């Protein structure tokens, strides 16, 4: 079986550098703040997704984000990763600014991580092995179902601790996660980049 070519994850490295730089400045200067965005500081729609409320939140969100990005980029999906990140970031900004009018501040990269999670699962679905494919389909379905339930029911499931007055925004996971479905369009046109040797 011929191994697929591995690429240096330059895009992930740039993303990691951005997250590191964001952690070095006071989070208040980068977080999404509705009144400041309305006053013209529109960059906060994006930079708010690079800062976090707690170290635990930062570790989980950026860990998942960078881990998925490395895996996808090493397998040759750099353009898809870039597209998905752009979609995920844009849909997160939409969910926060336009679709959650009672939100006055926001921090967190889980929208980007959700988009890459769905993309990774979609890429795995193209595998010939039915067990792995079913695992991936189930994972995406469970992920979107959880986010959907949280959005409709107005309560979160097993969310980690956040500072008082800060609540998880399930709509971000739901909407940004659909950004990962952009990978579906590529399934029929290109190989997944995964080893495609059938298990005999």
């Amino acid at each position, binding site marked *: *079986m011929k191994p697929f070519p591995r690429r240096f994850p330059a895009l992930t490295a740039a993303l990691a550098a951005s997250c590191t730089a964001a952690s070095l400045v006071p989070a208040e200067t980068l977080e999404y703040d*509705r009144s400041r965005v309305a006053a013209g500081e529109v960059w906060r729609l994006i930079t708010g*997704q690079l800062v*976090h*409320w*707690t170290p635990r*939140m930062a570790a*989980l*969100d950026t860990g*998942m984000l960078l*881990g*998925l990005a490395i895996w996808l980029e090493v397998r040759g999906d750099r353009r898809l990763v870039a597209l998905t990140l752009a979609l995920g970031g844009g849909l*997160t900004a939409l969910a*926060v600014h336009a679709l*959650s009018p*009672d*939100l*006055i*501040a*926001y*921090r*967190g*990269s*889980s*929208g980007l*991580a*959700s988009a890459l*999670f769905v993309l*990774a*699962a979609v890429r*795995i679905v193209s*595998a010939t*092995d039915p*067990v*792995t494919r079913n*695992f*991936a389909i189930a*994972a995406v379905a*469970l*992920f979107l179902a*959880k986010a959907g339930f949280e959005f409709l029911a107005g309560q979160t*499931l*097993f*969310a*980690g*601790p*956040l*500072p*008082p*007055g*800060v*609540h*998880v*925004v399930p709509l*971000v*996971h739901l909407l*940004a996660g659909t950004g990962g479905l952009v990978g579906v369009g590529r399934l029929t046109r290109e190989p997944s980049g995964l*080893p495609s*040797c059938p*298990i005999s």
Partner: protein
Amino acid sequence: MRNCIALLVVSLLVLVLTAGCVGSMPPTHRVNSALDFLYPHGLTAAAPAKEVVLKLPLRVGLAFAPNRDYQRDPITEEQKQKLLGRVAAAFKENKAISHLEVVPTIYLQPAGGFANLDQIRRSLGLDLMVLVSYDQAQFTESTRASWTYLTVVGPLLIEGEKNDTRTVMDAVVYDIDSQALLFRAAGESTVSGHSSPLNVDRKRRVFAAEGFEEATKNLIGNLNAALARFDEQARSGTVQGPGTPAIAMYSAKGERITATSGHSGGGALGIPELILAALISISLLLRRRAARA
């Protein structure tokens, strides 16, 4: 020969007496109360709280309530400041709080009351005060290993005393201007350990400090929850529901904060998402191993 026998008898007597001196120590119980400090003449003499007006963000002070009659605390002032520093650090990200100040206990006079709090408010520019009280009991009992105290090295080497330290810390948050209790929370801990007769005092001090550390951790979690409940309750217009003082909260821009006002959000992944990602990774790994085999 007679001298040897006499010496042996005297030594045995001394050993028995020493073993008899060592045994269970009386339990100690140390309490201080924020209510004693705030209402030195009793709660019935207290004036009713006025309407509460909070202008966010708030400046909050934290202090241990002073003991009446200058009783000795089980922990030092430095340890108290560290514990309060940990509580302050847990709330520094809260947008409703602009400043958290740990107030040294010497600023508070025993039975100082709200007049004392008012002095502190004017000096440090505080809006709210968090007063921490504690109740700590320590029990020390001999165990079966204590028979070794009859030997010379027993008291030196064998830790035959069992210690239990039970600590409860209670934090009450007051609006100084209106003298209204906004909310409260408690934290507790139990620390168990052993000591020898020779180091029992030192060990009890160590366990006392540990008890406060563990109780502080518990207190921080409960304070977070109490603050979240208070935030929701206060938006509806009263401190703790019907029959309690009315409360009005205003943002930095002077806008009234109500139940329909905005909140902060976080995009935070949790353990379920992590588990899903782990399951996919495991299935990929298994698939790759099967392909290689």
